[in-house]
């Protein structure tokens, strides 16, 4: 599996990580190597095998549909890089 610069830029865009040209040049062979090594999984016969979903058998629990830890707005905002009027603040997204 060979990953080219275009693919690296596409993945970086999907992952929301800005990459410089130098980083793209370094990442392309690195990711190619790792994906090439992972490729050996294709030789495993998995006919009729279900993908793993829970490694230890467990049941999903339901709880009562009630507020358990409400009313802590200021705690939730305490670590925000920018908070205004009781909300998280982000750059303007609507023109």
């Amino acid at each position, binding site marked *: 599996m060979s990953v080219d610069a275009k693919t690296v830029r596409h993945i970086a865009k999907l992952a929301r*990580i800005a990459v410089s040209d130098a980083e793209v040049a370094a990442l392309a062979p690195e990711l190619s190597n790792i994906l090439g090594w992972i490729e050996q999984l294709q030789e495993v016969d998995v006919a009729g095998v279900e993908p793993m979903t829970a490694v230890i058998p467990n049941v999903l629990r339901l709880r009562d549909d009630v507020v358990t830890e409400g009313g802590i707005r200021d705690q939730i905002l305490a670590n925000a890089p920018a908070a205004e009027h009781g909300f998280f603040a982000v750059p303007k997204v609507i023109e």
Partner: protein
Amino acid sequence: MSDLTDLGVARIRDGVAAGDFSAREVAEAYVARIEAGRPLNAFLVETPDHALAAADAADRARASGALKPLSGVPLGIKDLFCTEGVQTTAGSKILEGYTPVYESSVSANLFAAGAGMLGKLNMDEFAMGSSNETSGYGPVLSPWRRNDGGNVALTPGGSSGGSASAVAARLAPGVTGTDTGGSIRQPAAFTGITGIKPTYGRCSRWGIVAFASSLDQAGPMARDVRDCAILLEAMAGFDPKDATSLKLDVPKWEANLAADVRGKRIGIPKEYRIDGVPAEIDAVWEQGIAWLRDAGAEIVEVSLPHTKYALPAYYIIAPAEASSNLARYDGVRYGLRVQPAQGGLDDMYEATRAAGFGAEVKRRIMIGTYVLSAGFYDAYFNQAQKVRTLIARDFERVWEHCDLLLTPTAPSAAFGLGEKMADPIAMYLNDVFAVPASLAGLPAISVPAGLDGQGLPLGLQIVGKALDEQGVLNAALAFEERAGFTARAEAWW
């Protein structure tokens, strides 16, 4: 009284209860040792006030006859655990300054049991690494050195590198670690200490910064098997806040400790004999087999046919889960924000993540993003999850022939800082023996087995059936008694 920092968890607990010394004296001794140990870079934050307050509470509890299971025991906490009011970074610059407003369930359990916190322990960034070199705050040094007089700086392993170094250097009697694909066991092996990853679901993941949620498990690291049993008992337990927490009572692991493997069948998986592993690892493995046979166990050769596919499957599943979990670092709710001039929201996300994440974390997020992307999901992610089923099935079948497995923990002794950073895959191979038990969710412990020719510790791993921590601990205790491992790193720092 000799140096109180020579005492581990059980002896501190018992000594405080007996009045041999005060919890305050213990905490003060460790606080001073941590200050002197700063060159190791094991702690990111020191919290002497927390440890001393818990110690004073323990001394008062003794006076009133209300001692708790860990009264008087100060612990180090890996920086992956959110600690209320104390900076938690997961070793990443993107979380520098982040101060949780809540406590992780595991650390809360430990504090409720009377333990104090000495500080937060350095680690590979978001637990992604096997040498502690990916930390955003500099690598941790192992207290161990080769006996060649060269004084090369060695890794304590990773990702729980600060945890391992702190225990080995006696900066803490015990610590928390986390293990996604070997991050408790490999550093324990590298530093001559003991560390156990319990069955997936035993310890709550709530408040542990998430890496790969289907694999992440907390566990203790300490100087011996008994101390690990004591700590694990306090850490484990059902937690409704973690959807994968197992609703089971916590067994009395310490009370039921017995160095007894008579009649137990110990499997030696033939697929773990791989090329390129130093002869000294094989020799210590053979020695371990002989010790357990001597202790009354029956040794059987077994097969886990899909072993060679465990590591590549892991390097699809873990990065896939990481790419999803780490999407939360967006510069909005907590952590770093980088806002380019003229830029919009997307530019802020991209600049924040580019500046805040280190190279290995970016690499894994991108691998994860790729294997989950349209057109590749089936070929990579689904294939890996099917292989994971086959690996778990290998273990289920092997338990028809044996009760426990004995394997090396890692394919080498500790290496020098910088030796493997240039080659990601060479670094990943550190966890070749640790990852299969992670993928199957099984309990596994690393115990010190001996020293190699360079004077560095080597560890062996005991893997058990799901929920059989007791069997793992008991076999480890029998092993520990025969190994008689007393070597320790002498302070040079």
